[in-house]
């Protein structure tokens, strides 16, 4: 998200943390001599009722996880479908039986986000996250503070599998989201759910720090318990060789290769967890040796034929489809994730097998400076492209194919020259969108990998 055109700082700290009285640790994180040039502010926004709902969510779903089986759908499903039909305009006039619901796609959410808002959702609690998406055109995701903060109990339930617990309290930094991008929002924050523990979102880009060595010094000083980020950011962190003792690292958004995982685990001496999550419903599963283990009993997963509205039996490979969640602004019923796998159930726990997630792709300028595909997605999200494919040839020439009735090849060429620091050859082709398109999903590829 470009800082210049992104959201603006609009709240007071009292509004960011309605339940926290002592903000001294937040001020320490913000004002530290080694602190980055934070460009944003953020809070968890939880009031008393909302915090109770996060705790209730934890107790109901994560204390003892009860999933579905091949023969038995989850017990909450019937009530959930009924509630959706009664209160969510997009699902009105559907039956109360799951099989009466066709699959929906990212396009449905992109085109009609307002129709997915339950009539029971309090609009005063609406929050919006504008995502470029690493695999598609921009999307406005609607959510509330409760579904956002539920990330924490969901992650705690994973960490429990590794006998790891996050220490709560106002003198510890619980989580640092590490980025290595040209631009991103950065801030220091706190977690009410974790009793005031620190939360950081930082960018390793040297231009974000007062001195080149401050990133390492700052991280070493606050030594976050959990590091989160994508494999590219983690490799960038590894290059800096910081002396950190994280309890765990959680990698998401891109596929984590075995080589990268091993390198990180050898250096940081902690588990590196490959998390599968989507902006539309947050965390879903994490990688184990026998597949991605599902962590959310409040989600029901199915596999569908890629092109037809046909559910496939367990063991058969197809597109992963999600139902459920705890977001009243985006309740999902048979949402196509765009990711492919098969499902199996082992000892009552469902696993995603052979998940084809997004691959991390690095592009290079002619003089070998790395360019992250997230920065490309972020920048391109400003242009009204319905989709695009980008490929880098061995001679480093970028081939770009976009789908749009508005964007010109000149605009895209200018953007690519900027992001590649005027050190690249590009071939841009823009195809018009007709009434009957076979527009492919956004795809990055390179002959240099």
């Amino acid at each position: 998200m470009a800082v210049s055109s992104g959201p603006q700082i609009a709240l007071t700290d009292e509004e960011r943390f309605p339940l926290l009285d002592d903000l001294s640790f937040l001020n320490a994180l913000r004002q530290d001599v080694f602190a980055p040039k934070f460009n944003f502010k953020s809070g968890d926004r939880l009031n008393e009722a909302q915090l109770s709902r996060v705790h209730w969510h934890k107790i109901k779903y994560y204390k003892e996880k009860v999933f579905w089986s091949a023969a038995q759908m989850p017990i909450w499903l019937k009530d959930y479908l009924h509630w959706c039909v009664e209160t969510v305009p997009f699902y009105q006039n559907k039956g109360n039986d799951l099989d009466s619901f066709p699959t929906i796609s990212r396009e449905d959410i992109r085109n009609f986000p307002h129709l997915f808002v339950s009539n029971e959702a309090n609009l005063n609690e609406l929050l919006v996250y504008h995502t470029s998406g690493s695999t598609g055109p921009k999307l406005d995701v609607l959510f509330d503070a409760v579904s956002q903060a539920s990330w924490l109990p969901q992650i705690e339930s994973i960490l429990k599998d590794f006998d790891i617990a996050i220490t709560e309290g106002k003198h510890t930094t619980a989580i640092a989201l590490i980025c290595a991008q040209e631009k991103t929002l950065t801030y220091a924050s706190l977690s009410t759910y974790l009793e005031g523990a620190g939360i950081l979102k930082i960018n390793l880009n040297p231009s974000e720090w007062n001195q080149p060595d401050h990133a390492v010094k700052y991280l070493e000083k606050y030594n976050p318990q959990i590091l989160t980020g994508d494999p590219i950011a983690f490799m960038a962190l590894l290059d800096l060789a910081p002396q950190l003792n994280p309890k765990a690292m959680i990698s998401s958004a891109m596929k984590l290769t075995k080589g990268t995982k091993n390198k990180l685990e050898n250096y940081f001496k902690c588990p590196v967890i490959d998390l599968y999550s989507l902006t539309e419903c947050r965390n879903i599963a994490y990688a184990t040796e026998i597949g991605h283990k599902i962590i959310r009993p409040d989600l029901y997963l199915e596999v569908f034929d890629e092109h037809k509205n046909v559910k496939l039996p367990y063991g058969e490979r197809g597109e992963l489809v999600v139902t459920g969640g705890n977001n009243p602004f985006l309740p999902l019923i048979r949402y196509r994730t765009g990711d492919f796998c098969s499902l199996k159930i082992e000892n009552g726990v469902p696993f995603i097998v052979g998940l084809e997630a997004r691959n991390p792709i690095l592009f290079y300028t002619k003089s070998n400076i790395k360019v992250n595909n997230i920065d490309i997605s972020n920048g391109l999200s400003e242009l009204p492209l319905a989709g695009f494919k980008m490929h880098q040839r061995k001679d480093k020439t970028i081939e770009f194919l976009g789908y749009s009735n508005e964007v010109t090849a000149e605009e895209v060429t200018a953007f690519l020259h900027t992001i590649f620091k005027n050190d690249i050859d590009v071939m841009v082709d823009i195809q018009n969108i007709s009434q009957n398109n076979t527009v492919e999903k956004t795809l990055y590829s390179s002959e240099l990998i």
Partner: protein
Amino acid sequence: MSKYDVFELVTHLRKCPEAYLQSSDFFSTEGVNSIALVQDTYRLVTNDFLRNDFNISSNLGTIDDNHWRAIHISTWLLSNPDFINNPVIEDKLYSFWFIELHKASAYVKCNEWINDDERAEEMVRLLLYCCEIIPFGENQDEAADKLSSLSSVERHKVLKQSYEAHERIMKIKREMEEQKAREAANTYGRE
């Protein structure tokens, strides 16, 4: 002529004389004596011209001019031979006059019952429905569907719901634009 043919009853209704559109005047100096008109209609329907104990609303003060005139017009409709000497509908008329027409009159101006084809058909069908009479050539479901599609009360309800849904969507869109431009809540990991 077929009995309870909607088209024929609508044709009859639309010939309602101007006199029935006058305001209610219990002293019969300048308008219609509504009570007398209702009682006469009861007598026609029951074919009992000596009775005086007909069921008439005890809250006459709550009936407004537009509602009274709708009742006047409906008595013309009830003067059609289909309803004369038809005592089984006597105890259905109270509900028609003082409940159903009361609700519909909130959305229909009295002259529309005569001048507007759809409203005329609505009054005919409302009367038949209240009297538990199925229109000629129709079955119960068809009759119910047709009345529902004409009903001013239903239409208002649907419009209100649709208006509320529209308002809600507009409000969500406004909130979305506002919230998109503002800080949201902590992000803990990449997605």
